[in-house]
């Protein structure tokens, strides 16, 4: 299975993704997703964030590809007031673990800390990524990215207008 996604492949991919986000290359980031992908951030109040389903409970974010692209495009516009002037962000990705799923899919867990500075205020979003990565032609793509925040509310962060 030379085509399987190794821990090294996953790590390279996640670091490249973080670079796109910190460089504010949002449309390029959106191209990392398959057409059937989802990008999700569960409700911080949830006791069962791994099992939660956005069809039955309220998430912070549950984007299919139209809204993944919409979110990326929106962040490029000055009319996106919540991110004007743009934040500075820094994505730290660590503790990457990979196990094989079905049909060559890789199930990846990783820890994250994302720093956001808007004007003079810096906040941090910390938690765990749960990815499903697949190979599409030659490239690794994201089929699922679920972010589980280690917070109980956005009391300190206020809002979530960057991409985790």
């Amino acid at each position: 299975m030379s085509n399987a996604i190794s821990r090294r492949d996953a790590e390279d991919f996640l670091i490249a993704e973080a670079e796109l986000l910190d460089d504010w290359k949002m449309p390029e980031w959106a191209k990392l997703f398959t057409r059937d992908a989802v990008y999700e951030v569960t409700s911080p109040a949830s006791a069962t964030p791994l099992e939660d389903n956005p069809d039955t409970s309220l998430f912070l974010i549950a984007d299919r590809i139209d809204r993944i692209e919409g979110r990326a495009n929106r962040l490029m516009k000055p009319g996106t007031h919540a991110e004007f002037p743009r934040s500075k962000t820094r994505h730290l990705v660590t503790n990457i673990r990979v196990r094989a799923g079905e049909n060559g899919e890789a199930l990846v867990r990783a820890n994250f800390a994302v720093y956001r500075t808007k004007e003079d205020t810096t906040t941090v979003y910390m938690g765990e990524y749960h990815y499903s990565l697949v190979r599409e032609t030659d490239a690794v793509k994201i089929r699922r990215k679920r972010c589980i925040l280690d917070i109980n509310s956005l009391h300190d962060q206020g809002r979530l207008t960057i991409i985790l």
Partner: protein
Amino acid sequence: MTFQDPAGLHLVDADPRRKLFRVHRDAYRNADIYAREKELIFGRCWLYLGHQSELRKNGDFVARRVGGRDLIFVRGRDGRISALYNNCTHRGARVCRERKGTARNFSCPYHGWTFDTAGRLLSTNTDHGYPENFNEGGRLNLRPVERLENYRGFYFVNFNPRAISLYDYLDEARTAFDNLCDQTETEMIILPGEHSYTIRANYKLLAENSYDGYHLTSVHGTYFDFLRDRAAGNEAATKQLESTIQDYFTSGRTRSLGKGHAILDSMVPTGRPVAQWVPIWGPDVKKEIDAKRAYLEAKVGKDKADYIADYQKNLVVFPNLVINDILAATVRVIEPEAPDFMRVTAWAIGPQEESAALRQLRLDNFISFLGPAGFGSPDDIEMLELCQTGNAHSPIEWSEISKGFTGEGDVLHAWGRPDDENHIQAYWTQWDRVMQGLDTLEA
């Protein structure tokens, strides 16, 4: 003084002759006025606590801060719903440290005093040192909040024992609750999950923003861009989108409902699970929505069904509850924590019997626009923070809220166009009346 001239009690300036309505910016930024609001506004108005669907089983509780007071909203072992101060009568520790759950009783972690789910003191965890009848008259039970009443399953508290009833307090806003609750064949329920976040601005700025139609195109242009991109290639969807946006300022109205409450009725082309179909949702969903609409018509008649189904309704119940039944329905409560800082908690609410397809659309619609990560609310939040920081660092004293002000008739019941500010004038008029003691809200 100094940097900003204090206005004293003269904070709301309505000039009927010149058709001007202004609010002094100290109302948003001054610590003394904020302290008076905590006493008069939050000490005398009915404040939203929670919904009956959050307490399903006996013993279910949620712990919530309301008007600066930590409360337990609980269904007792006997099934009775009560609101108790979350504060041990011994030395004052919070007796409930979880945000929600199911309790057999509440046990203080400090010295072990234990109370049942109705608040009765069961044990002091000692057999020595206290006199007979130590808890005479229940004086050491967990204290119940002075008043707890509900309207159609929405529970409110009032810290003033002499307050008028919730029914009277809600005034004409009761019809808005009725229109929301009549959408269901069973009952409305709070859905799982919650948005809890903060805004660095005065709580009244969010109340104003929650039913402000004037800002729709200037603040939310990127949201409409997203809707346009999504509709691209679908001629019917594009046509509906553009014509609805075109007619926005003339197709709805603001209505003030008495006692500072008001609603914005407007048309926005997002679709509504109950019950307005949009082409982007496809034909299968149309069948379901048509059926829902037929149900509504049979239940309440065509005119009322049309109103319930077609209009987006942004309701503000004075002073700090928002119920927006728009592209999805949200219950949003605003808890002030400082003159320039608020905590917001919002839930999705929907019919208990809703199909999986409509429930999915409801939740998907909700987070497409609403919440701290949606394509709409965060841009609103940015505006509120801009106002707060702008007002904090400026000598300019007055905010203009004159749009649509006629200077005639009863401000508390005035109507206007969706982009007028008559409803915000009603809010401030009531705020001023309560702050000046002209309306004590007492029976």
